[in-house]
């Protein structure tokens, strides 16, 4: 019977060391919770880099392409009007709105994608109610680990690796 545990570490060196040590064991490191974007913790977890920028690229291209098409559709196709000798389809005049809409949709994609992949916009999650967890937004680093077999040996191991406290996660 495996058990999920949350351990609090006093600083980033301690948690990074613990992550590396645990990766050698059969226990499974689930995720870390840190008060800021810690490069050291990220390196220790060794996850592949975020692919979110690809989504942003696609979003931006859709925005720019859509804007160009819409401009052509409106002023060259639906209601062609020659002003100042410029032909109805005049690409130079379409550049700015195309650019602006590209940036707008790329930015919207970036933020929405972050909220979606980070599973944000929710009231609580499976760790927020844990005793003492509010230090995760202050100066402590928390690590979620799934034990291989019973939880007791993992509890001891986490203590040995420098955890200042080990808790069972709770929903707020």
């Amino acid at each position: 019977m495996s058990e999920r545990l949350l351990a609090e570490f006093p600083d980033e060196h301690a948690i990074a060391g613990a992550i590396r040590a645990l990766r050698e064991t059969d226990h499974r490191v689930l995720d870390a919770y840190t008060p800021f974007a810690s490069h050291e913790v990220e390196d220790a977890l060794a996850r592949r880099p975020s692919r979110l920028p690809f989504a942003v690229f696609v979003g931006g291209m859709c925005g720019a392409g859509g804007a160009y098409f819409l401009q052509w559709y409106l002023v060259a196709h639906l209601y062609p009007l020659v002003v100042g000798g410029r032909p109805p389809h005049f690409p130079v005049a379409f550049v700015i709105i195309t650019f602006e809409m590209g940036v707008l949709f790329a930015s919207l994609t970036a933020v929405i994608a972050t909220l979606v992949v980070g599973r944000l916009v929710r009231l609580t999650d499976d760790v927020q109610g844990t005793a003492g967890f509010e230090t995760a937004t202050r100066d402590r680093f928390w690590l979620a680990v799934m034990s291989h077999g019973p939880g007791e040996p993992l509890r001891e191991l986490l203590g040995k690796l420098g955890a200042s406290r080990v808790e069972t996660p709770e929903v707020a």
Partner: protein
Amino acid sequence: MSEPIILGSPTDAELGDQLLGTAWRRPALGEQRWWRVAFGIAGALTLVLFSLITYTVTTGIGLWGNNIPVAWAFGIINFVWWIGIGHAGTFISAILYLFEQRWRTSINRLAEAMTLFAVMQAALYPVLHLGRPWFAYWLFPYPSQMETWPQVKSALPWDAAAVSTYFTVSLLFWYLGMIPDLASMRDHAPTRRRRIIYGLFALGWNGKASTWRHYRAAYLVLAGLATPLVLSVHSVVSSDFATALVPGWHSTIFPPYFVAGAIFSGFAMVLTLLIPVRAIFKLHNVVTQKHIENCAKLTLVTGLIVAYGYIVEWFMAWYSGERSELYQAWIARPTGPGAPLFWLAMICNVLVPQLFWWKRGRTNVYLLFAASLLINLGMWSERFMIIVQSLEREYLPSMWASYAPTWVDLGLFLGTLGFFSLLFLLFLRNLPVVALSEMRELRHDLEHDAERKEAAAHV
């Protein structure tokens, strides 16, 4: 370059207490009175703004002083002035981020807030200037039975696209940067009511490493996207002028000249706000002499570009050999009806920033504060000079006329100053003024650098 950007060595917890504490610290009794006075004045002027907006909308823009030939006056001057001020925020948060200017971290939140609030004031003006603001949605291509569409080959729909994109992207950038700090506030605010409110806005952020990974990628991408956007907005605004044939407007120098002027006035406003905020909240350990000095240096650089813009305008007027251009640049502006504002612009925008060549000028906060106010005034005068003076003296002398604003114009302008101040005061009292999680990251990066340097010294 070796001057520190964080003084002392605060721990993560101390940084949190200090930087979040600005939002729920109870000010001392004597200070409280000043807050009340500030909120009172800003609130009263905001009421003036909304009353005059109501008056203008119900009566018509004949209440304003603009008329043929000066059809663009306060409405456009204030639009350009406010949106120019709004340029420093995104310049600091995006462009300086890409250039890895670490000092930007302690001032980006404040500057971005300033940007948002300034763009809100700016956006009021073109909408009111429409005369029938309830038809403002005609600017956007929506499926309508009239089957007429925005003419996207004109610079004005470009403006609508640029300004609304700029506001949206700035808001997204500001909010995304604030989510981890809002989560911090949710966990450490003193009252339950505050915890619930901040908690709702924190969207359930818990600092998971896998979320941080995507978050950082998104932040970097947004900085990259906002960078060309900053430069595009005022370029587009300048096209509203440069594509017209009015003497004094029809010039290719306009886009860089406007962008430099915008960042110039933006940095001046950053200094105007930053110097008192730093003193009130005692942020001297995170907003150090170096930050103030760097803002002054950037003001000087952009000020010099603005001065270059003036010189090019005079030169091109002479070089064109065109009589109306020559008259506009060399006679109408320095000696015409608006001459005092022309000279004010020259003194405030060209002479005042020269103070920043001296270390003394960049480090004395009283001097800097005064200089920043003068530059704000100078940049307003510059927009008056470009817009009103050009229209007063067009090609046909029989069409020449002078312009004077009405009390409604002046009241609306004061009102936007009040509304801006009110929003900024609310920001100061309710949200983290300095980006806390970014400061913590910066502190750790600086620590790692120091360790690495020490290790290298031992080898």
